[in-house]
């Protein structure tokens, strides 16, 4: 009952943007590196981008995507890739920085205007991003949405796009890798992040206790634990990176007084 829609369609739908993302990024890196005067684009960022696209896409194309329709544990693994690990790697690849570097001055200005807009401020606000990300997950797993999604192709597509976009917005609202035009203090971002991580953990335990309709108990339990500990692992990386920036930003300007007796 969970397999009644065509896979090739979603493969094409998600496959084209994935391939385009890699090709365009590589073109950008090539264009940037052609100018000897410009700083060479760090290869590690290209790696982040490549694996970020690959992991995100693996949740919606190929064997993991296929298996996830009948198995909640695999579904949860796909979601960890699509909504957390993939977006984190993509954020670390600093795509906006690359884009601003290779665009003409005129177009770069237009892009900046867009990034400075109120709409962009709204969507990259840590609270909005948390609400979209964690709130969206609560909606998915505590209502009929999860069940309905498997019967409606358009809903299935929409939910997966949402999980990915919300995951990316959430990551960039906390970790400032690309240029940020609406900044929030470290303490503010930390507090929002704690609430978000708690919301994620509570939902995991809730799923463990009250599985979504149509999900067998054992799959719900392993899936919930995968969500709980997988979420912890990815968020630990974000915490370390966030605090590292905080640590660097607060370095003492002058050396502390050392009194020798």
């Amino acid at each position: 009952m969970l397999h009644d829609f065509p896979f090739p369609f979603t493969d094409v739908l998600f496959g084209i943007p994935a391939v385009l993302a890699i090709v365009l990024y590589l073109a950008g890196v090539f264009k940037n590196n052609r100018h000897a005067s410009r700083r060479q684009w760090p290869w590690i960022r290209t790696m982040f981008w490549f694996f970020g696209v690959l992991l995100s896409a693996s949740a919606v194309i190929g064997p993991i995507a296929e298996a996830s329709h009948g198995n909640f544990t695999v579904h949860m693994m796909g979601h960890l890739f699509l909504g957390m690990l993939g977006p984190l790697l993509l954020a670390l690849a600093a795509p906006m920085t690359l884009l601003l570097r290779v665009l003409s001055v005129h177009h770069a200005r237009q892009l900046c205007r867009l990034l400075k807009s109120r709409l962009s401020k709204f969507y990259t606000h840590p609270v909005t991003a948390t609400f979209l990300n964690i709130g969206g997950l609560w909606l998915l797993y505590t209502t009929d949405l999860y069940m309905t999604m498997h019967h409606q192709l358009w809903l299935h597509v929409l939910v997966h796009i949402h999980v990915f976009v919300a995951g990316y917005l959430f990551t960039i609202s906390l970790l400032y890798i690309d240029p940020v035009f609406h900044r929030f203090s470290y303490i503010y971002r930390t507090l929002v992040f704690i609430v978000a991580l708690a919301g994620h953990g509570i939902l995991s335990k809730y799923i463990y206790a009250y599985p979504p309709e149509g999900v067998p108990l054992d799959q719900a339990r392993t899936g919930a634990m995968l969500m709980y500990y997988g979420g912890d692992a990815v968020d630990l990386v974000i915490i370390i990176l966030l605090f590292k920036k905080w640590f660097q930003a607060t370095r003492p300007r002058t050396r502390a007084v050392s009194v020798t007796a």
Partner: protein
Amino acid sequence: MTIKKVTNWTNRSKFASKNLWAGILFGLGFVAFLDETLFHQLLHWHKFYDKSTIAVGLVSDGLFHAFSWFATVGGLYLVADLRRRDALWHKMFWGGKLLGGGAFQLYDGTIQHKVMRIHQIRYNVDIVPYDLVWNISAVLMILAGVWLLRSARQDERMAGSGELHVA
């Protein structure tokens, strides 16, 4: 034994509360981490979810679990910060660590285990001795922490009057 002279009393005093908070945060995070690794993962004594958990217990557990990650990482970055400022004060840090760890363990052992019933220490055994060991060791940690903090302050006063150079 070599006696190392403490030469950074000025910095230590200036960043006394940062030393204390580094300890409290890291202590809390470390105890939560041990709880997760030792009792959930290795011994399998704690349950991931206990049916008798009350709703607020799920929220409390979620918040503390999330906070403990931030506390562990944040506490260690504070230590790094104190080191680069030449202001790390081990006795203060350890006092805070025992205080934070003990306080969390006591909260976990009384409010979370007993009132909110998020899970018991172990199942299918007489739970009383486990609860006693858990909570008494928590109280001992708190007392040891407070004692270390007082002792640290005493060292500071004595150093001020030129009587002490070790710690």
